[in-house]
């Protein structure tokens, strides 16, 4: 039996006011099921947006400098407030810009000048799910990297840059930290007609992949492959590459994961996920 000090609220030797105050204390309430669910939904969005949503305040300058205007405008789109989005004629969606509807509103399309993402119309998710490619092609992440290399890609989101002001105009906290709204996740639109919708679709696909990386890495690679086909010049190519590397590592393809992690580290040092990648590289070499 270990020694246990007497609690003050049970002690006769303690100052009465101190004792009474402590006795009035209520035990710490437990975690309720509804609070757990609220937190889980918010967390899913944080986990799905590794670079975009986390620490935007701290990283926006670095990211904008490193990845060019395309990425900067992606960040701007994501951190824009719902009120401002309305003003700009876009859809009043959540601050994380996750599309809540598979089809963009006609008003948004019109106001964005009917922007169509290159490659986005070439293939629909439905056609993919109906006829899955042969096994040998399924995990061809070759395609993912080549078509959307974060390094070689040319930023192609000038419309987004025009549509929303620069990041610095939004001193709001990062959406990951507060104000995340609970938006149901819908399948990505087959063809994104505005930069906003396009980015939403990108975020959504990457969210799906992120949720699968640990439990079903091959499935995650499928999703990432689809992302690469739909968005050959993706604004979030960097995030996709990180997820591909993680999925490869989790599916046992450590050599490939290591090789690609090294490439990404060499091309984009100082990124937020450097520690994650270095760990994959280190593990692979042990």
């Amino acid at each position: 039996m270990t020694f246990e000090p007497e609690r003050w609220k049970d002690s006769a030797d303690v100052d009465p006011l101190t004792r009474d105050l402590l006795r009035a204390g209520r035990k710490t309430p437990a975690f309720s099921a509804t609070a757990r669910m609220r937190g889980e939904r918010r967390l899913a969005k944080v986990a799905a947006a590794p670079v975009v949503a986390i620490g935007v305040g701290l990283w926006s300058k670095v990211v904008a400098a490193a990845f060019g205007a395309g990425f900067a405008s992606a960040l701007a789109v994501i951190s824009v407030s719902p009120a401002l989005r309305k003003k700009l004629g876009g859809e009043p969606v959540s601050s994380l810009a996750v599309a809540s509807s598979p089809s963009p509103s006609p008003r948004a399309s019109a106001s964005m000048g009917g922007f169509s993402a290159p490659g986005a119309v070439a293939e629909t998710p439905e056609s993919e799910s109906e006829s899955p490619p042969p096994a040998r092609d399924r995990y061809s992440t070759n395609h993912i990297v080549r078509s959307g290399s974060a390094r070689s890609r040319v930023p192609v989101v000038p419309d987004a840059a025009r549509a929303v002001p620069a990041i610095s105009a939004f001193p709001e906290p990062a959406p990951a930290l507060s104000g995340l709204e609970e938006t149901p996740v819908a399948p990505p639109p087959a063809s994104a007609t505005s930069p906003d919708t396009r980015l939403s679709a990108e975020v959504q696909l990457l969210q799906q992949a992120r949720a699968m990386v640990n439990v079903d890495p091959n499935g995650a690679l499928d999703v990432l492959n689809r992302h690469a086909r739909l968005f050959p010049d993706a604004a979030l190519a960097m995030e996709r590459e990180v997820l591909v590397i993680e999925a490869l590592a989790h599916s046992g393809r450590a050599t490939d994961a290591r090789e690609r992690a090294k490439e990404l580290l060499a091309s984009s040092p100082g990124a937020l996920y450097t520690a994650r990648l270095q760990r994959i590289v280190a593990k692979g070499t042990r």
Partner: protein
Amino acid sequence: MNVRTPMNVFTLLKAPEETALPPEPSVEDVYRSHADFVWTALQRFGIRAEDLDDVLQEVFVVVYKRLPSFRGDAQMTTWLYGISLRVASVHRRRSHVRRERDMLELEDIHSVDSTNPEDGLAERQRRSVLEALLDELDVEKRALLVMFEIDELPCEEIAAILGIPVGTVYSRLHAARRAFAKAVDRFRSRAKGRQR
């Protein structure tokens, strides 16, 4: 310039290598198994009910970023406790204005009670005073005092949460009690000062 070399598709399809990474907990796994622990810890650090959702999320954003560097040297709970402590400290510094407002409400309570504070406080008032006095302590002392005196955790359990020896729990409890006793003294002299 670092140019990617074309990768053979077949290299991606070979059998898992021996160097395959062991499964590691994702942030979602950590949330599922430990969110209740963090939630409770944050309340003991003095995070108000209306802020708990936001602060919980801030903790898990940090967990998400730091999970790759968690090596398992410490218990997961101890690691999470440390992160929660830092996030809660930052939050409390940010919300100092609101705490000052709470102190004003506390003074209202005292002004209503013009008699001796020793026997003039109703249960609800005592609870408000307790909360305000606990908030005068630093977050670590506050949490320790709440764990031992209010939640009535055994010292062994507190030691496990903090990742420290039980002997250290005793000495920290002593320090926390002293700080609380001083806060009670300050409260008493403020109340008496108002009586005059």
